[in-house]
């Protein structure tokens, strides 16, 4: 068995993973990565997972060994912020060519390492394995070992070629590389009883910096953050922390568990998304530090800061509550913890109609159940088609998701907000939640949605689903079957009504040219007078989606 497959096996056999623990011996051996369905749309590979987990280390050179595609497509694709070095943003690759595939790429890799050291002199180089060199048998572990000895520099192989599995597995393999080659290799200049590690926090849009001032104030030191705004020396010294907080629930659980086993650092899973979660996490850090010998006054300082910040944040989100009343959210998240975002949204009075639990653990699901009640709509794996259906049927007013679902939402004419890694705003901590609410508010009330939901004003009835739905609304409004769904949607209607209404005469004037007369049909069906026709026209853009449900 090669060391890579042993490592993978080991990653699958994660003791701290409840799901894994419940499996039979045989099932455990098979691993937990679902075999991808050939021909199906899929997400990122193990290489990508490893790269994004380690990329936020800012002062090291990230060298991708492989043909151009792997680095070429992933260069600088995440907004992790750095407080200093920018070397992590430089794109280093061996750019393997045909000749390297034939004769092997090890020498090329070795020379690339040398050139990086000559030119940039970084404290360490992370070398990423990719599919092609892995298949032709380039031994990056050996090259890294040789280069490290030759140049007296840390050269860390990250052995996670794309074909071994999913992005999530790649996260774990990246963690393994840290455990094997980095953590515990240096000693900090000084330690304090207040030192913590944050694991699985990537400082997207600089959101870690919204928490750090608070930790500074309370007197808690982040000894190492893996890996947001991280530096090589910090992670090398991270084994001296007193406690650790796991921020992203699944990505690096192996790192947290093994650090507990090797160095006795206890960890907990927490979140800085949402007001109450942030408070809970801060308290937990304080309590655990005290357990490990920090002075008990730490808790008092924490409580004082929590009380103050909570009051401010609650006051700040108060103004959104009226605007969010009755608004429904569909949550489709990848990395950011669903349960924690759920709590945050509920604090602002939003109703969550569904959340994806694809990457959530069973504890996560329990938490969601607790938060959302028994009718919680947990979606294992939402295909774009289902997502589209759900949005179009107006089970939600807005979707929060990663960028890849953006276009599904938009084509379904649904407000959408990016809450994954490519987002432009920091949502962490007491300040971040207010920012999130601001962004949701903007997304919900953007005038473009009315435009999206309204057909071209000259459009005829047969042409589109909106018009069909409207006809239905009209029938029910004039004595047809009552539509409770429609009634529920009243606020929805009010909002869209502000749109510039189309003069009926204009529609009537241009309708004959289309050969069909939506207005007339509606008038016949309902014996509506010209005046009520006008009224129904005005409602046109208002209730298309709810009516569609009724229509089906």
């Amino acid at each position, binding site marked *: 068995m090669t060391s890579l497959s042993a490592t993978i096996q080991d990653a699958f056999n994660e003791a701290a993973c409840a799901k894994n623990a419940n499996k039979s011996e045989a099932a455990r051996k098979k691993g937990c990565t679902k075999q991808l369905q050939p021909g199906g749309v899929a997400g990122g590979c193990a290489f990508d997972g490893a790269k994004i987990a380690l990329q936020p280390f800012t002062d090291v050179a990230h060298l991708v060994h492989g043909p151009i595609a792997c680095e070429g497509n992933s260069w*600088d694709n995440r907004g992790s*912020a750095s407080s200093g070095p*920018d070397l992590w943003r430089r794109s280093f690759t061996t750019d393997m060519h045909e000749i390297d595939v034939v004769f092997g790429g090890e020498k090329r890799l070795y020379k690339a390492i040398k050139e990086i050291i000559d030119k940039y002199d970084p404290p360490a180089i992370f070398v990423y394995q990719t599919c092609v060199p892995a298949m032709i048998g380039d031994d990056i572990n050996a090259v890294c070992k040789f280069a490290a000895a030759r140049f007296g520099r840390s050269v860390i192989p990250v052995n996670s070629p794309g074909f071994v599995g999913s992005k999530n597995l790649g996260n774990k393999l990246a963690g393994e590389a840290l455990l094997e080659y980095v953590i515990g290799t240096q000693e900090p200049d000084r330690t304090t009883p207040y030192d913590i590690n944050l694991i699985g926090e990537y400082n997207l849009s600089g959101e870690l910096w919204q928490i750090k001032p608070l930790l500074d104030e309370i007197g808690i030191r982040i000894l190492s953050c893996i890996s947001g705004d991280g530096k090589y020396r910090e992670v090398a010294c991270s084994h001296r922390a007193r406690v650790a907080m796991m921020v992203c629930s699944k990505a690096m659980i192996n790192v947290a568990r093994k650090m507990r086993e090797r160095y006795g650092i206890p960890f907990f899973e927490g979140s800085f998304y949402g007001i109450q979660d942030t408070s809970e996490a801060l308290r937990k850090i304080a309590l655990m530090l005290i357990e490990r010998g920090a002075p008990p006054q730490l808790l008092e300082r924490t409580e004082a800061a929590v009380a103050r910040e909570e009051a401010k944040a609650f006051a700040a989100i108060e103004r959104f509550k009226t605007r969010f009343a009755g608004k429904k959210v569909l949550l489709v998240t990848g990395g950011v913890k669903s349960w924690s975002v759920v709590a945050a949204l509920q604090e602002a009075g939003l109703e969550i109609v569904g959340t994806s639990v694809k990457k959530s653990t069973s504890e996560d699901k329990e938490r969601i159940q607790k938060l959302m009640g028994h009718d919680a709509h947990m979606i294992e794996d939402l295909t774009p088609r289902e997502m589209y259906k759900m949005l179009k049927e107006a089970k939600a007013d807005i979707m929060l998701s990663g960028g890849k679902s953006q276009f599904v939402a*938009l084509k379904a004419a649904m407000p959408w907000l990016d809450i994954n890694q490519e987002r432009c705003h920091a949502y962490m901590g007491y300040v971040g939640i207010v920012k999130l609410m601001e962004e949701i508010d*903007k997304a919900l009330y953007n*005038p*473009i949605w009315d435009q*999206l939901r309204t057909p071209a004003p*000259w459009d005829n009835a047969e042409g589109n689903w909106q018009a069909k739905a409207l006809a239905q609304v009209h029938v029910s409004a004039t004595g047809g079957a009552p539509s409770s769904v429609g009634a529920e949607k009243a606020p929805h209607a009010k909002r869209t009504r502000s749109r510039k209404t189309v003069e009926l005469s204009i529609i009537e004037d241009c309708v004959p040219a*289309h050969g069909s007369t939506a207005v007339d049909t509606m008038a016949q069906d309902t014996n509506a007078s010209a005046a009520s026709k006008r009224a129904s026209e005005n409602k046109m853009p208002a209730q298309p989606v709810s009516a569609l449900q009724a229509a089906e």
Partner: protein
Amino acid sequence: MTQNAENVLDHFELFRGPEYQQMLANKRALFENAHDPAEVERIREWAKTPEYREKNFAREELTINPAKACQPLGAVFASVGFESTLPFVHGSQGCVAYYRSHLSRHFKEPTSCVSSSMTEDAAVFGGLNNMIDGLANSYNMYKPKMIAVSTTCMAEVIGDDLNAFIKTSKEKGSVPAKFDVPFAHTPAFVGSHVTGYDNALKGIIEYFWDGKAGSEPKLERQPNKKINFVGGFDGYTVGNIREIKRIFELMGIEYTILADNSDVFDTPTDGEFRMYEGGTTLKDAANAINAKATVSMQQYCTEKTLAFIESHGQQVVAFNHPVGVSATDDFLMTLSRITGKSIPKGLEQERGRLVDAMADSSAHIHGKKFAIYGDPDLCYGLAGFLLELGAEPTHVLSTNGTKAWEEKMQALFAGSQFGKDCHAYPGRDLWHMRSLLFTEPVDFLIGNTYGKYLERDTGTPLIRIGFPVFDRHHHHRYPVWGYQGGMNVLVKILDKIFEEIDKNTNVVGKTDYSFDIIR
């Protein structure tokens, strides 16, 4: 020697050299008798205050940095839009040189236009002789099919009568009796270039329709199905008119573009100089009387023209420089209503694409505040589009805007939740705008090239949309009308927004943690 023949520096670099800097400093210190820099600084800061704004807005007589031009500029712009037509401005030649350079600097094309070169004696004795000689010379030298006469202030102040002068000139044989010489009085001390456009266009139409200044019987209207289209004074005329033609053709509408200057401001380089190119044929101009309706894209450019056309029995419709989805919907539906032609699938798809693009990018524009200045219709169209995007057109200023325009703008604001803090400022100038930008700052400024001073002084990033745009090339080739035009405006705005984000995050080691590849 500071300049060096081996390596000649241009003015960007040369005067930064120590010799020049020393020279300039000496001049300042020894000869300029300058104010104390601290005092200058104090006044500079004071000019940013609400107190100064109040004084500024109380200004009655002085106009500082006006955002408008004079009538004859608009007259020349309209006149070159007719087949082989030479604009002839009766008055002093200096004015005419301005119109030519103004238009050429914007369109990067030669502008053919002559004057009657009135001098002091003409001012004393009247300009009749200048008209007689001028028409004769123009006719013989430049071989036009028509000479469209307008006036500068000089001729207007002494009260030269164009109708009588042109008749006399014809009698004296300057041009053949049958040669077309329409005219319009276009004093700069009334209105602005949009008024001049209106007057000149009306003058030409009136000439053809109402019996060529009394020399022929008036035309009888024989209604047909055609539509006349008038663009108005428009810095994007090249792109816009071509886009409008495309839309008409997609819809299968028979049309006449009146004052079609889209070709004369965009002639190909192929070895031939074209003094005249394209344009509305004189026959079409005359036959335009028979059209079913006339559609104007800019109400305030065509008030008199449309009234005249309406009096001849046509339907007339005026828009306010429609930009964006709703405004274009309105335009197309009106065309559809008038002509009975349906709006084709292709245009509906373009509409969907614009809506899609707006949705993709709306988060970046939503809630941003803008200041706009320019011609009244352009301001209205852009403000409408911004409201549609969820942006706030906080200050909308039009030096040549009227009270009626102000009311119309305020009604537009009142119709949108994003318009509640927005104000229209008719008759104000760019110095007023400066005060507005200091006291009530906005995120972006939309205006012509002259806005770059405001951009520099107030730090408000300028999005160049308007006329003139001298310091950026070829924007006039891209339409701002139709759904495609809406897309162009959207991209222009977004480009600036993203450039600003990049600019604010590009300091190495300081702000570049947000200097992201993906926005």
